[in-house]
């Protein structure tokens, strides 16, 4: 007789909450029935999005609880696949927060572009459940499940504005390229399994032989799969097209959460396996990081569409994030986590402004639309400037602390010429980034107003998201880590990242 497996359901609580929530929202969508008029549908959508927000708030709450409890819980101790440790809790909170903010951004936006379908929220939650699974995976199989569960709903979401050709193109492109990457990832996993006979990270780390070409190739192919998800060069080509074609709220969602989930998973994988082969693979990562920073920043300069520019900026940021992975130290991984947190608010804020200017089905993604915006919408222009300066890494914003922390981690790591060269490349490419990040502020403040674009009203959700992002960007930029007696004692970003990484050992 097969003994009943001992399962720790508490370990899977966030996962159960978010996937249960997805079905709840789906059921609610059916239960509320179809509505004829736009206004009715809007009301229904508002209910659905509030339900999704409630679910996500519960997930964040449970992740925060497990983080402060600090214990590592395995879902199935006999077959460790998913574990809820501090790193997973941090990752879950991160992706859920990103989802929550993007859901708040979507409600009015979907009405404005005229695609108010309740499935939007269910799909979003399902994708998030994949991310939750991914960040807690300690096994190749569950990691693959997580990646697929995350990706497939996003393929659909990218084409959510189905009457638009661009949106369809975006979905198809993302789907084709994504499937290809998944296949490579799977192939790499198969090779790794072939070389080591294991699928768990711990098992692979224990029996990995750096001189076995099959294992090295397998790990390299797994890395390719991940670099696709984080849109690092040379697997970034899908990014600009998908970012441009997908509805702005979807782009906002995927740009922060997919990157966050994939990087947290990469940190886990890197920590478990890269230590075994410091040589060739870190060289590959070095090249990837340098190429990503250079190509991302250079390509962003010549874009003529705001969403495409932000897509290449997202590529460039993947390069800076990789800097922390190349450093390969606990400090480096901490820097990656902090960077993800900062990037979440910066990018969601920037896309939030685009969403808030979207009018009658048209995303405000042409540069001309921002000319003279400071005169018409001073608050939005100021916010956009803040987010752009933050993305450029200007001091006083979260972006600077994030960039400083990865630079510092890289110089601190093994103090080799290689690392210092990489940091110098990062510094010089940051200068290029200033050029394109200043383009919007330049247009908004220094150009004459062109055609009046955008709506004049800000929906409550948009207003809330922009305010949260702006405050977070400044707080994380000025006082990211506070002691218990300080004014902002609840903001302890460095402690959070340090404790998350400490959970790995």
């Amino acid at each position: 007789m097969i003994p009943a497996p001992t399962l720790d359901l508490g370990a899977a609580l966030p996962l159960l909450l978010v996937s249960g929530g997805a079905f709840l929202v789906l059921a609610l969508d059916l239960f509320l029935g179809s509505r004829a008029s736009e206004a009715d549908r809007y009301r229904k959508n508002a209910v659905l999005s509030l339900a999704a927000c409630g679910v996500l708030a519960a997930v964040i709450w449970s992740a925060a609880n497990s983080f402060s409890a600090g214990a590592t819980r395995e879902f199935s101790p006999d077959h460790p696949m998913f574990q809820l440790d501090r790193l997973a809790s941090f990752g879950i909170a991160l992706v859920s927060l990103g989802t929550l903010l993007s859901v708040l951004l979507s409600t009015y936006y979907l009405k404005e572009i005229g695609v108010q379908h309740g499935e939007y929220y269910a799909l979003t939650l399902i994708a998030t459940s994949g991310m939750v699974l991914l960040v807690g995976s300690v096994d190749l199989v569950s990691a693959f499940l997580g990646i697929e569960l995350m990706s497939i709903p996003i393929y659909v979401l990218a084409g959510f504005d189905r009457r638009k050709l661009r949106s369809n193109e975006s979905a198809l492109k993302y789907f084709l390229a994504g499937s290809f990457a998944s296949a490579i990832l799977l192939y790499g996993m198969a090779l790794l399994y072939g070389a080591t006979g294991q699928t768990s990270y711990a098992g692979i780390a224990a029996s990995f032989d750096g001189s076995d070409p099959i294992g090295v190739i397998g790990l390299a192919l797994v890395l390719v799969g991940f670099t696709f998800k984080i849109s690092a060069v040379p697997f970034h080509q899908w990014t600009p097209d998908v970012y441009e074609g997908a509805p702005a709220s979807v782009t906002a969602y995927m740009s922060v959460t997919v990157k966050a989930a994939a990087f947290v998973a990469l940190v886990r994988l890197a920590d478990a396996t890269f230590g075994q082969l410091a040589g060739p693979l870190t060289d590959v990562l070095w090249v990837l990081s340098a190429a990503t920073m250079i190509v991302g920043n250079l390509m962003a300069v010549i874009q003529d569409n705001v969403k495409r520019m932000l897509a290449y900026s997202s590529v460039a940021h993947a390069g800076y994030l990789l800097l922390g992975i190349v450093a390969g130290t606990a400090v480096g991984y901490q820097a990656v986590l902090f960077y993800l947190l900062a990037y979440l608010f910066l990018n969601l804020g920037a896309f939030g402004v685009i969403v808030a200017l979207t009018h009658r089905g048209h995303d405000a993604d042409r540069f001309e639309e921002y000319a003279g915006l400071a005169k018409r919408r001073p608050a939005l222009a100021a916010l956009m400037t803040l987010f752009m300066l933050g993305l450029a890494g200007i001091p006083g914003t979260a972006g600077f602390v994030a960039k400083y922390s990865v630079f510092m981690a890289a110089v601190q790591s093994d103090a080799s010429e290689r690392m210092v060269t990489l940091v110098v490349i990062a510094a010089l490419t940051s200068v290029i980034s200033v050029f394109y990040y200043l383009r919007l502020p330049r247009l908004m403040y220094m150009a004459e107003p062109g055609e009046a674009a955008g709506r004049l009203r800000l929906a409550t959700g948009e207003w809330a998201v922009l305010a949260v992002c702006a405050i977070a960007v400044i707080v994380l930029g000025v006082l990211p880590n506070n002691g218990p007696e300080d004014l902002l004692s609840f903001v302890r970003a460095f402690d959070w990242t340090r404790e998350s990484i400490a959970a790995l050992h």
Partner: protein
Amino acid sequence: MMFDANLLSVVSFLPLGAALALVALDQVAKRVGSELAASAWKVGALAASLVTFLVSLKLWTGYDPTRAEYQFVEHTPWLAEWGVNYYVGIDGISLLLVLLTTFLQPIVLLASWHDIKQNVKSFLFFMLALETGMIATFAALNLFQFYLFWELMLIPMYFIIGIWGGPRRVYAAIKFFLFTMVGSLLMLVAMLVVYRLHFEQTGTFTLDLVAPPGGALPGLLDTNILPSGDVWWKTQPWLFAAFALAFGIKVPVFPFHTWLPDAHVEAPTAGSAILAGVLLKMGTYGFVRFALPLFPDAAHQFAPLVFGLGLAGILYGALVAMVQSDIKKLVAYSSIAHLGFVILGTFALNDEGLKGAVLQMVNHGLSTGALFLLVGMLYERRHTREISAFGGIAKPMPVYAAMFGIVTMSSIGLPMLNGFVGEYLILLGTFHASPWVGSAATLGVVLAAVYMLWMYRRVVFGPVEIPENRGLIDLDLREKLVMLALVIPIFWIGIYPQPLLMRLSAPVNEILRVMEAKRAPAAAASALPITLEASLAEPAR
């Protein structure tokens, strides 16, 4: 008590606080249904900057010139695990520059009272934010904090040039921003390397330049950085080069100067005056405060090269200034020449040179700031800055001509005026370091006299040929006040520079002492102990 203990922070953040208060008031007024008038903003901003100046005078009176260490120190952990602290303090050098900033700010605001017509509120907000950035940069003793404010200052200046500037303002603004960024990001990398070296040697993470009073931990200045070695990026020359690039671009030192004429010409009057008056000093100040004491061997090693660049700047600036037809451009190029002198004085690496360099920073701030304001006054009246558009304006504008004359003389370095003292000390120091460079630099003084006087003659003297110039109105009370405020210190420093020089002695000596103590342990070890031993051994025998 609270106020006295945080005097430096109060001075730094008063302008920004006032700016935020004005914004808040404006929002409150909007709620009520009205709006704060632009003139109310002007009065508020002027009052804030005046109060800041008055409070900063307490720094002057409270400063003890006999002590070499930093005073008015505040030290609070900020990002403790990174060794980042909120750490401010001033010595005589930063004291003078802080006072220069707080002194120039109300003058500049008053001078541009009618100059800015659009978006007055944002303009004043940026000006006040800029003032906080400048003071905080001069006061910072933690490298992270220094870098933070150094970069943060770019933003208000970027907008000031880009929104209220001339026809090519957008180009000038982005050029200014990008040039500065290249240098500063490389400096950031060098900073991180020094930080690492310090950790390797002491096992602690800190970015404090020197240990805070009462603190047991060493500061970055105690780091021993090799003058040369196998690991190139850990050696002084490379690290110095990264710092020097950042500061050199800001000064600007000769080949990196191309952003300056653009920025100056396009910026509004207030922007040019602050840019020339204070912002350029960030670079020279950075050399004195950070680059020299951190990398003394490299400073000595690079001194000939920097001398060459400084000299090139002096001659190039002067020659290009000579052929300018636009007064503002002429003044901009004269700035390059003047800052070449400051660079020479700094890299003479001796007492006179350094003192002269710091004093000349203040002098240049006063006289070039004043020149830009004077050019602005002409421009407001005639909407042109072409030298050929003027001539003989001494007749319609006698007071203006007199003020212009004094400031021109001060810029040339006429004895009894401030420029003379600084230039004299610099030349003295340079002669000590290298007679050849000293003699060549003297040529620069002559050239300065040529282009400034020539310009002055063409603008002010001669018959009034162009009819528009006949009806020019002389300075009104506001403008007279502005110029009077600037002319008083020009005379004061020229006649009695002692109070300033006295405050510079101890800190300058301290910098030279630190440099000597850190320099080439091998050379010092071979020189000092042997003589000591010999002198000790003598009586025993």
